[in-house]
């Protein structure tokens, strides 16, 4: 084997001195360049979760619905079907090449779900950017949406929901978190394992190029002379992505596939070592058999390449031709590149020589770090805002129009209309009209999905913000009648090596964990993205929650729009004088200050149960949960999103004595706005009382205006049409 000055190369690739020493002791010799490369990617933060692994262990794993875990994605089982889901970040690539970064994010998460044996049926995208007035942020935002649309629409998995926020803190680092949901009969789930001595390791999909190994160009210039620095951005190929989905499912259906794994981050290194490790076996790979797109690729380049649209299969010996033919039929590569050995090692050969020989288990057991953490100093400063310093507006109409057309509150239609959100003909409640619900063909029940996180709350209080994200997601699902069933998360933070960022991370994980445990929702999968910072600072800590719920009768799903005149409007939950962290404070008074609204988990849980019961009993005509923008945004949305928009007359007097702006724009949690026909009001009130949820009749629907009064005082009287126009044009064109 080739000898090298390993220590230097290791350092260049980001391995610490003690990590290099650990490698020496694992191997009992000096590593080859390929081995160092393999360790460096497997033990990178991105693949190895070095700083987060310890904390992820505290996340609850049990809930009301039976969960399961795969290597890449987990899920829940309901009625014999496995719902597999996972969220993943593509922040860094999207910041430098928005379109391709986002496109490959979609492709990658789809293959993660595919790797569990499930058919991907829906995607969600949670996006955060700097403000749109910023030239670069606007460019990134537009490119990202274009990328999600390009890949998602071509690959034929509907992008059904998501979220979109603009805060200055994301100027230098956007967030692109993509979630995918897949479905499979329970018994068809597959594992990412290589097993059975003599079985074949089969490479399928696109060819391997030098994509995504820019990080290694240091190595290149050190070891192999000055070479042009290659872009570390990968290019998505939705055509191959779509064909790979079909071919893989067809191959799995034969029953001859022992294990399958997506070649995502860290490519062949990750797929070979993790398949071997989880199969408790070894694999031997011959790199000369790997289909290459470029000439002269070095073995370490082949092992580290992150070329897209590739998967690795372990196939039962004797059936390899049949499997390969399936992929070739779909126009994809299909090559035997190695076989399963009982050595427990990942052995890589190149031109007849062994270039790497590493115990698989050791390679997949990166070190765990828990560096010091420290409560950041900014917290005290930003959390003592006092309402006294904010003068009451004199004209609420003008303020409301500014709010509804603001970047964070305006209609998302210009975004989700660019996504094919109907392909697959399962989307029975469309985006923009409330919570998105997918039917399951042949079943009465359906699946509701959402993604939520308010980064400003999390900045003001990472723990409370994370709890609120979980509460909001669950509120969202229950508003349509779905029971929250499982969570996936994507934890976006700054550098874990900085004590204040690391503190934010740990706080958020604990908050997330507490809320999920309280609600009985298992966290089935997730992803951590650190180092979201640049010289100007870190992003707001953003633990994005993806949540999946079950609605027993999909046909009963309730949406947000007011469906008819003379419905009685009822506010469920308690309104407190809370304006900290609100969009009102940010947009109108330019203050990103807190404390954010308090989270009352007990109340949230009761509200969820109440809403689910109300939908089941068919009491509600419409329902929407309250979140950013408070009560007034819920009223505006319900007025404008229906089939035929209609107004309402509302009196806030009954909500108690407090500032009018807090009544209108405050973001207290645990609330929902529902409408019912007169004859159902009694049942509604009775059930609300049983669930210990305050319940106030605040008005009724009808007319062409949204009229808001407080006792004798008229606060707002605006035509629904004007509100709708403002709301829909908020994001420009």
């Amino acid at each position: 084997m080739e000898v090298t000055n390993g220590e230097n190369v290791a350092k260049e690739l980001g391995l610490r001195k003690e990590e290099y020493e650990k490698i020496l002791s694992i191997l009992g010799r000096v590593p080859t360049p390929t081995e160092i490369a393999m360790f460096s990617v497997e033990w990178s933060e991105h693949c190895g979760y070095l700083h987060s692994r310890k904390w992820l262990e505290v996340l609850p794993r049990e809930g009301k619905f039976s969960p399961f875990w795969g290597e890449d994605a987990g899920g829940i089982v309901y009625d014999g079907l496995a719902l597999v889901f996972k969220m993943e970040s593509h922040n860094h690539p999207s910041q430098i090449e928005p379109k391709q970064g986002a496109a490959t994010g979609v492709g990658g998460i789809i293959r993660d779900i595919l790797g569990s044996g499930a058919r991907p049926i829906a995607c969600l995208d949670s996006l955060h950017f700097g403000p749109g007035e910023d030239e670069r942020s606007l460019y990134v935002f537009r490119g990202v949406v274009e990328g999600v649309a390009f890949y998602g629409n071509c690959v034929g998995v509907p992008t059904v929901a998501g979220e979109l926020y603009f805060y200055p803190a994301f100027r230098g680092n956007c967030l692109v978190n993509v979630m995918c949901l897949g479905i499979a009969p329970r018994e068809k789930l597959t594992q990412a394992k290589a097993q059975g001595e003599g079985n074949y390791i089969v490479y399928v999909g696109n060819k391997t190029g030098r994509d995504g190994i820019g990080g290694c160009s240091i190595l290149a210039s050190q070891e192999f002379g000055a070479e042009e620095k290659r872009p570390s951005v990968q290019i998505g190929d939705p055509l191959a992505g779509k064909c790979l989905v079909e071919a893989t499912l067809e191959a799995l259906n034969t029953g001859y596939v022992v294990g399958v794994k997506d070649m995502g981050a860290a490519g062949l290194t990750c797929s070979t070592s993790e398949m071997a490790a989880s199969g408790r076996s070894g694999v031997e790979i011959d790199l000369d058999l790997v289909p290459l797109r470029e000439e002269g690729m070095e073995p370490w380049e082949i092992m580290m390449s992150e070329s897209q649209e590739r998967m690795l299969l372990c196939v039962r010996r004797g059936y390899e031709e049949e499997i390969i033919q399936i992929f070739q039929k779909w126009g994809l590569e299909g090559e035997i590149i190695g076989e399963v050995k009982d050595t427990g090692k990942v052995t890589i050969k190149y031109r007849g020589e062994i270039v790497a020989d590493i115990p698989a288990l050791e390679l997949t057991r990166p070190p765990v770090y828990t560096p010091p953490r420290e409560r950041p100093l900014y917290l005290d400063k930003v959390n003592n805002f006092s309402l006294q310093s904010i003068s009451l507006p004199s004209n609420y109409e003008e303020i409301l129009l500014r709010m509804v057309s603001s970047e964070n509150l305006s209609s998302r239609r210009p975004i989700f209309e660019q996504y094919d959100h109907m392909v697959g003909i399962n989307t029975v409640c469309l985006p923009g009209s409330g919570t998105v619900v997918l039917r399951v063909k042949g079943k009465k029940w359906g699946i509701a999905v959402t993604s939520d996180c308010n980064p400003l709350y999390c900045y003001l209080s990472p723990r409370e913000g994370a709890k609120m994200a979980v509460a909001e997601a669950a509120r969202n699902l229950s508003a349509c009648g779905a029971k929250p069933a499982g969570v996936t998360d994507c934890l976006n933070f700054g550098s874990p090596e900085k004590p204040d960022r690391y503190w934010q991370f740990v706080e958020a994980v604990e908050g997330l964990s507490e809320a999920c445990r309280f609600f009985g929702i298992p966290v089935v999968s997730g992803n951590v993205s650190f180092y979201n910072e640049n010289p100007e600072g870190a992003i707001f800590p953003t633990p994005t929650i993806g949540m999946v719920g079950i609605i027993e009768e999909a046909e009963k799903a309730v949406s947000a729009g007011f469906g008819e005149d003379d419905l009685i409007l009822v506010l469920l939950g308690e309104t407190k004088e809370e304006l900290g962290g609100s969009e009102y404070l940010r947009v109108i008074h330019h203050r990103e200050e807190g404390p954010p609204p308090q989270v009352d988990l007990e109340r949230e849980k009761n509200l969820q149960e109440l809403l689910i019961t109300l939908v089941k009993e068919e009491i509600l005509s419409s329902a929407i949960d309250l979140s950013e923008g408070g009560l007034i945004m819920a009223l505006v949305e319900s007025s404008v999103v229906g089939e035929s928009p209609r107004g309402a007359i509302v009196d806030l007097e009954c909500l108690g004595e407090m500032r009018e702006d807090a009544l209108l724009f405050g973001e207290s949690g645990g609330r929902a706005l529902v409408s019912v026909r007169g004859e159902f009001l009694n049942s509604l009130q009775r059930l609300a009382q049983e669930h210990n949820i305050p319940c106030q009749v605040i008005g009724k629907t009808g007319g062409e205006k949204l009229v808001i009064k407080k006792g004798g005082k008229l606060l707002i009287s605006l035509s629904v049409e004007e509100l709708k126009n403002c709301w829909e044009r908020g994001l420009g064109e």
Partner: protein
Amino acid sequence: MKFGVVVFPGSNCDYDCYYVLSQVLKAETVFIWHEDRSLKDCDCIVLPGGSSYSDYLRAGALARFSPVMEAVQEFAESGGLVIGICNGFQILTEAGILPGAFLPNRGGRFICCPVYLRVENNQTPFTLLFAPGEVIKVPIAHRQGNFFIDSLHQEEVKKRIVFRYCGPQGEIDSCYNPNGSWENVAGIVSGQGNILGLMPHPERAAEKILGSEDGRRVFLSVIKWWEEKKWK
């Protein structure tokens, strides 16, 4: 009667069409692979929507050279029933089986939403079950749905318009035109009337739970037409 749904690499509404035909309408339906040269004795061929070849080069440009398209062309010429939906419509124009071409949407972006259509001609095998001038609601989902026809052929094609984008009351106006299509065209038939191309997705509006059942009648018309023809 038997439907055949063609599968091109990248097609993604193939299964949706198959599901509606076979499960919702209980019609005999088979998939036809793009490399097949035979149409498996099908009576109506559906070219489904959804970016064959990911719309590389131009939407429909690569799929039209698939081996199956020779058979489709022959079948169409001999009077066989063909429906091209969305990308299927684009493939038909690229192959010259239907006239015209598609430009990117007027707004330059992909659009997915339900739209209203006015049935301009109910004398085709695909629209028998609609009333003349009826307004129906069917979703669109495309990036290149802006139908273009050169001035030489406009008169001819005008007579063959089957569906036009319209307002909720059937108003034909450019403000109800989602993509800039010439004459608000959403669907046309061939000169013989046996080939339908339409940008909206009838298979997405074939079940009550999806919000509209209007699209179902496109397929039901075909079945009825076929049965009546058989009786004659």
